[in-house]
């Protein structure tokens, strides 16, 4: 797939969000058409069940419509803003539905990552360097939490590590990441 098709131009999305803030429902529909396949894929990655992800997608767009005025256009990054809303909606839904851990072999709906190209999102220039500085366990814990929405307990089970270790890897990993990213070091 052509990258320009896969990733809508951010400026256009920002303009659509501004029109949504002015209650323009045609702009909202256009925004939905352009972004819902991306957010739906992201929700499937976390919620793993199509029916639940569909429900979450409704919650996500209701929130986007209600909060469009809070999007700070000058800061840009409308897609990142929407993906964050999607991640938080998924986490809220997990609590509400008390979703239990689904063993990986039972999951058919999780979108395929291999076909997608990396780099859809902006990241700090030194992000790859900083994440590379963390040890393997820590990196795995952060990824499971962020990408799949796993809780401390689930990560402990998935990695067969003690819960206390998982919590402290995450805590120290976040701190190390913050300190490393604060240093204006470019990747070599």
């Amino acid at each position: 797939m052509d990258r320009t098709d896969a990733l809508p131009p951010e400026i256009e999305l920002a303009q659509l969000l501004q029109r949504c803030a002015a209650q323009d429902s045609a702009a909202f529909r256009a925004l939905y058409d352009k972004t819902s396949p991306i957010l739906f894929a992201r929700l499937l990655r976390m919620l793993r069940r199509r029916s639940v992800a569909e429900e979450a997608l409704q919650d996500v767009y209701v929130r986007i419509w209600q909060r469009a005025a809070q999007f700070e256009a000058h800061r840009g990054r409308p897609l990142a803003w929407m993906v964050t809303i999607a991640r938080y909606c998924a986490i809220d839904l997990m609590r509400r539905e008390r979703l239990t851990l689904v063993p990986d072999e039972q999951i058919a709906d999780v979108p395929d990552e291999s076909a997608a190209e990396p780099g859809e999102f902006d990241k700090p220039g030194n992000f790859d360097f900083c994440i590379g500085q963390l040890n393997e366990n820590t990196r795995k814990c952060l990824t499971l939490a962020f990408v799949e929405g796993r809780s401390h307990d689930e990560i402990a089970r998935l990695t067969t590590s003690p819960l206390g270790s998982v919590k402290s890897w995450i805590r120290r990993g976040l701190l190390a990441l913050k300190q490393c990213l604060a240093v204006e070091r470019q990747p070599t």
Partner: protein
Amino acid sequence: MKSRNHELVDRLAAEYALGTLRGRARRRFERWLVSPQVGALVKAWEERLEGLEPPLQPVAPPATVWRGIEDRLELRKARSPSRWMAMTAIAATVVLTALFAFFALRGPSGDVAPPPQLAATQLGLLAADPQTIYWRVEVLGENQEISLHVHQVHELPAGKSHELWALRDDGTPVSLGLMPHTGDHHRVLTASQREALARSKQIAVTLEPEGGSPTAGPTGPVLLVAPLSAV
């Protein structure tokens, strides 16, 4: 002490953005997000963690999702009303008769809302006292729809909205959307709202920022609570 406190809030902001802050702790932290300082800490973490976003192949959602969004936000009225017009054209007399019956039963009211197709099964009167009823909320069918009637206009500060909640028996409130300030309204509920209402014996109205609570739960004061009773 102050810097220790800042460290703690920053740690919570980090785990909030990462997603590992869960349950009650997450909801408690969300109440702090109204503070610009806390909001800025969370935002900084969201930006730091963005690099973890996985590359994904887009997946088109089914058309039912958009229809559900339209229903929840009541956008359909703003769109071309072809469905209602077609129905009216086919059965104009029937609809008119139904509308007359509808208004005769309810007395004069402002808005013309499409008459509900389902029978009311539960009723909640959101009132300050028996003489001061603000909203009448009817649950239709098996929690599929709700119908909202404004009896008396509740005072609303500028920049705020009234939001309706189903109070689940386990104590979790689930939003049923914003409250209107005139006329009759009719709303189709989502699966999760239906499920919440089925487990609720009470409804409540809270005061929220304009457009509704920015979180999954209420953030403002509870103005009114009413029991749901069978009709």
